[in-house]
Structure formats: structure tokens, C-alpha cells
């Protein structure tokens, strides 16, 4: 964590399961939520992040450090984001999208939601319901009618035991 300016400021973030993390202020302020706290002068002690667990926060901080170490080069930032997200499973991505939303980090939010969309691309309706925890509120007749209307879109979908 090399500091660009003379005196590097370090912030302490606390996850909702009471894990503490140190992060350079210059990286942490990628989060508008944290930046506002810093600007309002309430980032002196420990910053509690009630909606993010330790595992997810560790991941987000890795991203903050990684992306802020890259100079203003959108291509390089994009390839860093792609690489960062490439090995994440759906559950991790889902946690990260919620964290990015809560922390108000638009670049991470965009990248993670695009990654989730990419993962969903060939998935079945059953997979989506299960992963997103969506309750099927169609009657069997309604569901059959909706499926019938776009029958061809169910061809070539990844097999899923729930569908």
C-alpha cells in the first residue's frame, strides 16, 4: 500500500461479524459511503459496516487496493476487474453486489452485475429461482402460458435438475 501523498491515512473498517480491516483511505474512498463519512469527519475511529460480512468485506478491500493501484487507464482497470471476478461463484457475486450497492461503489456495482448477468445467460428458470431465492408466484397454467409464448428460448439451456 504505497502512499502517493506524504502522510498515508489508514481507516479501520468493521464488518457485521466484527472483523476489523485496515485499508488506506485513498483506496477506501472508492466507496462513496465511506468517502462521505471521511468528509463528515466521522471516520476517526472504527467504521462499522453493518450490511457487509467479513468474507465479503475482505474481498471488497482486495478490489479497492487492486483497482486504486492502477493508474488512470480504463483498459487496465477493466482487465483487472474481469480477472478479479473471474473465479467468483454466484453466492460470492451476490454478496458483492449487495456490498457494492451498500458501499455505493459504482464501478464495482457495474462490473459485478454484468458478471452475474453473464453467469445467468444460459441458465434455466429453475436455477435462477433457486439462486435468487425467488418464489414462483405463477399458477401452473400461467407459467405454462408464459413458457409457451417464448418456447424457443428454452432450447439449449444448461440442464438443471430443478427444472
Amino acid at each position, binding site marked *: 500500500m504505497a502512499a502517493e501523498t506524504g502522510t498515508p491515512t489508514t481507516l479501520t473498517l468493521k464488518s457485521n461479524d466484527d472483523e476489523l480491516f485496515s485499508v488506506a483511505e485513498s483506496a477506501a474512498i472508492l466507496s462513496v459511503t465511506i468517502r462521505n463519512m471521511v468528509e463528515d469527519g466521522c471516520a476517526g475511529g472504527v467504521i462499522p459496516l453493518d450490511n457487509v460480512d467479513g468474507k465479503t468485506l475482505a474481498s471488497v478491500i482486495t478490489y479497492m487496493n487492486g483497482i486504486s493501484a492502477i493508474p488512470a487507464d480504463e483498459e487496465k482497470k477493466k482487465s483487472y476487474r474481469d480477472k478479479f471476478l473471474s473465479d467468483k461463484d454466484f453466492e460470492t457475486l*451476490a454478496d458483492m453486489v449487495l456490498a457494492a*450497492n451498500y458501499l455505493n461503489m459504482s464501478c464495482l456495482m457495474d462490473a459485478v452485475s*454484468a458478471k452475474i*448477468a453473464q453467469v445467468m445467460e444460459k441458465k434455466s*428458470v429453475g436455477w435462477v429461482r433457486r*439462486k435468487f431465492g425467488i418464489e414462483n408466484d405463477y399458477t401452473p397454467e400461467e407459467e405454462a402460458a*408464459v413458457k409457451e409464448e417464448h418456447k424457443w*428460448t*428454452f432450447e439449449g439451456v444448461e440442464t438443471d435438475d430443478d427444472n
Partner: protein
Amino acid sequence: MVRKLAKTSPSNIPPEIIEIILSKLSSVKSLLRFKAVSKSWNTIISDPLFIQNHLQSSNNLFLRRNITDRGFPLVKLEGGKIHTEGISVENIPNGYNVILCDCNGVLLLTDRCRVNKYALWNPSTRWERHLKTRYKDYVVDHGICYDKITDDFKVIFIFATKYAIYSCNNDSWTRKKLRARYRNTGLTLCFDPKTDELKVLQKPEQLSDSEKYVLGYNMASLRGSLCLYGYNYLENSVHIWIKEKGIDVGNNSNTNWKEFLTVGNFRASSMWFTQLCFVENKVVFQEKSIRFVSSETTVEESLWIDAYGGRFIPYRNSLYFPTGVKTKTIKAQQSSLILTLD
């Protein structure tokens, strides 16, 4: 059952984030399939604003207007190269072989061997509708437009003395008399979907200099705005004017055209009859070659497409069409769509 109590259960992703995720999904096939996930997902994906935003993503794909034995050739322009793909023939409405025009990814098709056979087709949703007309007059011009307010596609045919409008929502034809002063005048008319009336479109005054703009001008839709463009023979340049959004196209004033772009040092062949469209932040000209022009004034890339000849129209992943919900029964009724203008 699902482990609802698990800490990492993503079931708490709120609808507004689901909407953001779905907005990143460009595949029309996946989006249509996910309408079956739940009623609220269906509502998100069917929302006209969602559909409109989804269309914004440009994919650099072009369709040739004329069919070949492999269907309508699809080409992708990327990195200065043309990649050819083929839209498979079975998805093309049976018996149609020419694309006349497009609007929001919806194409108007005809059969070059038969008069008055027309269909609307969205290759992304694979939805088609046949528009049978009994009308045998020569079609002077035609067009499709989308009315945001009523979420309706309308097809317009202009004949020598009258014009006819087909509304998808109402599944019906309306015919109107063409005002005598519009006939054989060389005026440019525009169609107002709210009133179904035609209005005279005033062009930028520079274009009236017929020494410079020998072959007149053409029209296109750039990023949802109407534009006019002409080739200046004296200066070898292309001039593009644009109507900014919200400006009434039927207004009598010709001052509300904005100079959008001038491309210098652009030698056009004698056949200056080309389509203009946007690919990302570049304007694309087509004549013998497809040319990319950035918002600067130089031609950046020239791509020769002699292998195909013919003209191309942009192909867009589009959720538009069918509109509304009442289109389901249309297929059974298609034989009753008859245009009676006499």
C-alpha cells in the same frame, strides 16, 4: 427445500438490484426465458422503459437487405474487419426475401416477386406478423415507426394519391387521402404517429443549394434523432444535420436543424445513395464500402464489402415487438387483415 436461513442466501437481493442485473443481460433469448421466473421478473422485462434502455447496446451487426440461400447475411464490424455470420433460414418468415426498413430492431419484409405481401419481423424475439393487403397500387414509399406513448408500431405505405397506416396494437389499417399539394412535389414528408397525419419537413437552408448538393439528400435516424445528410460535390464532403430530441419535425422553421458533423475529403462514388447509422460513437456510411467516421472529420476505416454488394441495415438485439399482450391471437387472424383503399 432451499436453505432460506443460510447467511449467504441471495434471496435478499432487492428488486432494484435485480433490475440492474437484468439490464446488463443483452441476450434477448435469456431475457424472454426469464419472464417465466416470476410475475415481478416478467413485469421488469416487459416494461417499455426497460425495453428501450436494452436497445441502446449496439452490437456492430448489420443485415444485408436481400436474402441469399443462407438467409439474410449478418456481418459484424469489429476492429477494422468484417466477420460474417449467418442467420439461419428457418427463423425467417416463410416466403419473404427483402428487408425494406427497420425501426428499433423490427424489420419490414416483403417478397420481391409478389406485390402487396408484407410482414413485420423481429429476428431477436423471432416474432412475426403478416400484413396482408389487397392493394395493388404502386407503393411510392414506406416506413415503420414506433410511438412511445402508445407503445405501438405503425407501418405506413404511401401511394400516389393516398396513404395507409397499419397499427400493431389495433391490428387494423387506416387509410387517408394524400393532400393534393403533397403529390409529385419532391417535398419530404414526415409522419406523426399521434395524429396519423403527414407534415412537410423543412430542410436546412444550405441544402437548397442544388449546385453543391446535386443528388439532394437522405434521411436517417441517429441515436433516436432524425438527421438529414447530403453530399457536397464541390467540396467532396458530407454534411449531417440533426433535429435534437423534442423538436417538432413538422415545424415551419428550418432553423431548428443543428449542424452535427461535416466529413471532409470524402470521395463518394456517383451512387450517393446510402444508409447512415451509428456504431458506438462512430457514424457509418455505406456505399461500395462501409466507412467509419469518428466524431472528428476524418474517415477512420474503410471496409470494402464488394463480396456482398447490396445494402446493409443495422441489426440490433431488441425486445421490441410484440408490443402489449393482445398480440397473442394475431396469428390466427392474419387472413382478415385486408387493406381496402379503393
